[in-house]
């Protein structure tokens, strides 16, 4: 998927997403902290209650046993009959009643080495009850005592002795004792569980382990195991906490299996023992992790819903903007008829309306402008047509003064060609030809300017030549040029009225004249800034005309006639500068006079028509890639 981060839609969805995310995370974290605290407190309270309940149950067991002994001793003391018989009867009787959980009832006597037993146990001869710990402890305590538990060698069960001294007034008669299995207590501890991953523990008043799920820690034949026997840091931490009565009856330890455990404990009042419940940290944290999961899902759902709402909302804003944007884009690509369809009362609707108004105005202007341009174009086309027709007609006139060389030269030369190529429809270049008697005069004329002004000049020069050649012989071309110069200046007005330094009209012409004198069999040339090129079998030579041109010129020298013998097969060429100076795309400059000489050398052995075709081909080739700069006129003759 392509996401354009510059679009408003994406920008706002991202901003919204960040806002929602931040607020949700803050709320969730706060809620989690509070909830965690509450849940943890509730758990603690619940476990503590369970522990208290269990320790009370255990305590009840001890209280029952204590009370039973208390009652029996009380009854004996009240009867005042301390005879062996009576006492034997009493314990026999009690044994019958309590044989279910009592192992034996027995009494040791202070006055002599004697012991009577409810189950008829015969003490060995060296047995002196008065030296046994249960007897000594009971003798030294007013109330009921519980001995340390020990393991019965026969059954492997734990046995505890409950005992109380018997007094006849102030005289110590002996001590009543009862042996009972601790199995009930052990079962209570082992069976009652707070949760699946919890277990119970019972510690005596010295912190030694009485009950624990791990057999290794349990009392055995060698006695009960305590801190010095059990190498388990967690346990030692528990013992220390119990001794110091610290931490609100709850401590964290590492279990003997290496897991994190929480220990909750409570004292059993009757014996000063401690009942403890161990809960694994993982199970304790379980409600908390449920809480976290719950919050996680809630967060995810909230984000998805928030995103959907945001997307829809932004869509409702962006859609009209997009529509408006499409309209504007369409309008800008010249589809002037489109208008916005978003015309609601809000800001975007107002924008749409404003756009429509603006579009109306622009369309009006545009239509108006198009009409005006069309009108102007029509007028221009008409004007252009008129001008073109006018020039077309002028061209006809100019064409009509271009002589038919066939008439003029047919009898004078063996062959000839002419190229006349004005830059525009009409031009400043013309050629001219006249035969009177034995003389034929050919002129090539390059008037200043091209196009219509050039054509005007050419008409003028043409008519001047016509009239001059009526009075000056055709075999004196220099004289003719001189006369043409005078008459042209006369016609144009030589100098400006305002500035005597400036010529009035800056115009004139370059003219080349070749006269064929049949009388003397000569060729006479005179040029006003025009040269001729003569080629024979061996060579091509340039014969320079005067550097003076007709009209205004820096060079003031007189025009001169240059005479040649009229040798058969000599080829004579005369050209205006149009052909020589025409550039092309590949050649920056025209071929020039040197280039023309080289060209003539290359083609001099071909027929005149072929030469013309070659030169025309060169011209056309040049004009394919470049504009024609000047009118082109070229005449070639074979004598």
């Amino acid at each position, binding site marked *: 998927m392509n996401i354009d981060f510059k679009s408003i839609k994406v920008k706002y969805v991202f901003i919204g997403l960040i806002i929602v995310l931040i607020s949700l995370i803050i709320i969730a974290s706060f809620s989690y902290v509070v909830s965690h605290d509450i849940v943890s407190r509730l758990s603690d309270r619940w476990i503590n209650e369970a522990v208290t309940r269990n320790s009370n149950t255990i305590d009840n067991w001890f209280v029952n046993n204590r009370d039973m002994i208390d009652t029996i001793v009380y009854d004996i003391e009240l009867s005042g009959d301390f005879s062996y018989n009576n006492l034997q009867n009493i314990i026999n009787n009690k044994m019958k009643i309590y044989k279910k959980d009592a192992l034996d009832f027995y009494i040791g006597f202070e006055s002599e080495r004697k012991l009577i037993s409810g189950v008829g146990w015969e003490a060995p001869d060296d047995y002196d009850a008065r030296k046994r710990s249960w007897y000594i402890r009971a003798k030294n305590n007013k109330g009921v005592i519980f001995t340390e538990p020990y393991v019965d060698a026969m059954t492997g069960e734990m046995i505890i002795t409950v005992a109380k001294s018997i007094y006849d007034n102030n005289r110590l008669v002996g001590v009543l004792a009862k042996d009972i299995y601790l199995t009930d207590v052990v079962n209570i501890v082992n069976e009652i569980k707070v949760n699946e991953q919890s277990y119970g523990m019972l510690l005596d008043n010295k912190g030694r382990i009485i009950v624990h799920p791990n057999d290794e820690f349990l009392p055995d034949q060698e006695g009960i195991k305590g801190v010095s026997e059990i190498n388990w840091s967690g346990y030692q931490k528990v013992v220390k906490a119990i001794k110091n009565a610290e931490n609100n009856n709850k401590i964290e330890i590492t279990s003997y299996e290496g897991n994190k455990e929480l220990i909750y404990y409570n004292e059993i009042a009757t014996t000063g023992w401690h009942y403890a419940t161990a809960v694994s940290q993982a199970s304790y944290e379980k409600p908390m992790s449920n809480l976290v999961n719950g919050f996680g899902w809630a967060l995810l759902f909230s984000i998805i819903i928030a995103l959907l709402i945001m997307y829809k909302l932004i869509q409702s804003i962006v859609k009209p903007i997009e529509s408006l944007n499409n309209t504007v884009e369409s309008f800008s690509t010249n589809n002037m008829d489109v208008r916005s369809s978003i015309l609601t009362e809000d800001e975007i609707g107002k924008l749409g309306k404003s756009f429509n108004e603006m579009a109306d105005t622009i369309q009006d202007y545009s239509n108006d402008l198009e009409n005006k341009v069309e009108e102007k174009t029509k007028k221009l086309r008409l004007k252009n047509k008129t001008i073109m027709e006018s020039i077309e007609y002028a061209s006809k006139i100019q064409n009509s003064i271009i002589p038919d060389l066939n008439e003029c030269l047919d009898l004078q030369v063996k062959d000839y060609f002419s190229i006349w190529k004005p830059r525009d429809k009409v031009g*400043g270049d013309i050629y001219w030809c006249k035969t009177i008697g034995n003389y034929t005069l050919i002129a090539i004329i*390059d*008037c*200043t*300017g*091209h*196009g219509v*002004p050039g054509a005007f000049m050419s008409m003028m020069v043409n008519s001047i030549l016509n009239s001059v050649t009526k009075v000056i012989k055709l075999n004196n071309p220099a004289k003719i040029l001189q006369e043409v110069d005078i008459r042209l200046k006369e016609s144009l007005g030589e100098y400006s009225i305002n500035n005597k*330094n*400036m*010529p009035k009209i*800056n*115009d*004139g*012409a*370059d003219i080349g004249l070749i006269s064929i004198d049949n009388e003397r069999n000569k060729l006479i040339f005179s040029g006003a800034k025009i040269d001729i090129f003569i080629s024979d079998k061996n060579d091509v030579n340039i014969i320079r005309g005067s*550097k003076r*041109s007709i*009209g*205004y*010129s*820096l*060079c*003031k020298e007189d025009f001169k006639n240059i005479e040649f013998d009229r040798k058969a097969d000599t080829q004579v060429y005369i050209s205006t*500068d149009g052909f*020589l*100076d025409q*550039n092309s795309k590949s050649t*920056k*400059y*025209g071929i*020039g*006079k*040197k*280039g023309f000489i080289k060209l003539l050398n290359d083609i001099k052995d071909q027929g005149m028509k072929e030469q013309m075709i070659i030169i025309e081909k060169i011209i056309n080739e040049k004009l394919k890639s470049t*504009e024609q*700069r*000047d009118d082109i006129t070229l005449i070639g003759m074979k004598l």
Partner: protein
Amino acid sequence: MEEFYIEPTKSSPEVEFKPEENELIIKGESYPENSFAFYQPIFDLIETAVSKPDEFKFIVEVNYLNTSSTKSFMNILDILEKAYKNGNNLVVIWYYDEDNEHSYELASDFKEYLELPFDIVAK
């Protein structure tokens, strides 16, 4: 005097007058429809420029002049020649490409008939 500049077109040259150097440069090709109209402002400019005490430099670097542009150049050079004869300090420097016979011939024809400092320099 102020700066003067005409942008070149296909048929007219670039014309630039630099007042600090008192230098007029004409560069490019010249065959405008009406050459006299094109060069008229240049005639006026030269009349003023040559009368300044600083040396006036007329730098030409044209590839092609048609017949009527040639006449206009004659006018410019005419003015310069008269100014030179009146004692004004000036020089014409005509640059040409060695391949361009047309430009060289024009320059040497002008030089031949004018009495003023005229340098023809191959580019």
